[in-house]
């Protein structure tokens, strides 16, 4: 049985804390104990945290030539393993990220509207990690408002706590989701034809 989790950290800003979390020993070991088989990490413009991670073992990319060639949407695609039991796929960007969201069983995402909506529309359990290093942080507002509607969980990395405690907080939320202690409501599909009707009314068209 394969079990996949996707972590997406945004395309324009480098969300250091979330990338560091994604490749931390603490998180990787937790995934193994929960029988995850695949981790996918989208890390954005800066590769340094991935390439200097000491916990990931690179997989000979020659073996993966086929999959590399079949994924033109992904840039800097690389494969690693963690303790031989978890395969880790990393890339900078993916212009077809929604395909990987569908492939994943669970999603951890930055607070970007696009990946939040893609995950909710695909009905994937979602933890949003808010980047409080960003200046204009109104995106955090949607994460919190959607959490109030019980559509997702959210977390943030608190600078006054150490990494271990911060990571633990995200892991605990994932654990609660996996054990069904946290259950999400179903995200309602957008109401049909709202904009069509408004346009028709304004333009005096009869549909």
């Amino acid at each position, binding site marked *: 049985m394969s079990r996949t989790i996707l972590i997406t950290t945004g395309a324009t800003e480098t969300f250091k804390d979330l990338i560091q979390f994604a490749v931390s020993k603490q998180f990787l070991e937790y995934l193994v104990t929960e029988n995850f088989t695949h981790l996918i990490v989208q890390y954005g413009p800066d590769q340094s945290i991935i390439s200097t991670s000491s916990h990931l073992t690179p997989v000979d990319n020659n073996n993966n030539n086929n999959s590399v060639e079949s994924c033109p949407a992904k840039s800097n695609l690389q494969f690693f393993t963690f303790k031989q039991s978890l395969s880790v796929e990393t890339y900078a960007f993916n212009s077809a990220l929604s395909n990987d969201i569908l492939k994943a069983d669970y999603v951890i995402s930055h607070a970007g*509207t696009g990946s939040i*909506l893609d995950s909710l529309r695909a009905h994937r359990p979602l933890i949003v990690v808010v980047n409080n290093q960003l200046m204009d942080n109104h995106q955090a507002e949607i994460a919190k408002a959607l959490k109030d509607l019980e559509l997702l969980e959210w977390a943030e990395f608190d600078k006054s706590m150490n990494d271990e405690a911060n990571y633990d907080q995200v892991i605990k939320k994932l654990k609660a989701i996996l054990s069904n202690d946290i259950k999400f409501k179903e995200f*309602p599909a*957008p109401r*049909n034809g709202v*904009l069509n009707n408004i346009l028709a009314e304004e*333009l005096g068209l009869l549909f």
Partner: protein
Amino acid sequence: MVLLGSGGHTGEMIRLLDGLDFTEYSRLTLVITEGDNGSIKKARDFENSNFSSNEEVIISEHEASMTSVGNFVVDYIFLPRARNVGQPLISSAITTIGCIVQTFKIMWSRNTFPHAILCNGPGTSVPLCYVFYLLSLVKFQNAVIIYVESLARVSRLSASGWLLYPIASRFIVQWEMLHEKFSRSEYYGILV
């Protein structure tokens, strides 16, 4: 006519357009800021997946391009960047006026003015909407302005929202909290 601009806004607008039925319309004009390659790509992807194009006529690399599908036309207006970071206010005002003049020049040359303007708040859309509004007051044209506030705005309007609230024919918000604060606004749940 649909006003696109910068990552998040474009993403939401494309989601809105995905739900639209174009059969009653003859033309979709997408207004994009020059060099905003993310938005250009999203717009092209949207166009390709919704309208299989018969022919593509590129009028000018920088000004506009046009695709016609049977009788339905998808065309683009590319605007110069309204404001670069650190640009003094006076020169950004001049570029903004330049944007508006260019938009009208292109519409004039194609002999087409929109019946409806769909906008969700990128910065360049505000002055453009005001010009359309003023022209509708003098009956020069009569485009209706339909504004959809971004999902990211939960409890406060964006600056563009504030500015367009008084003049938009229809003003749609995606959070109940905003709807309660602004009596003219309409709320139908999350639309994107």
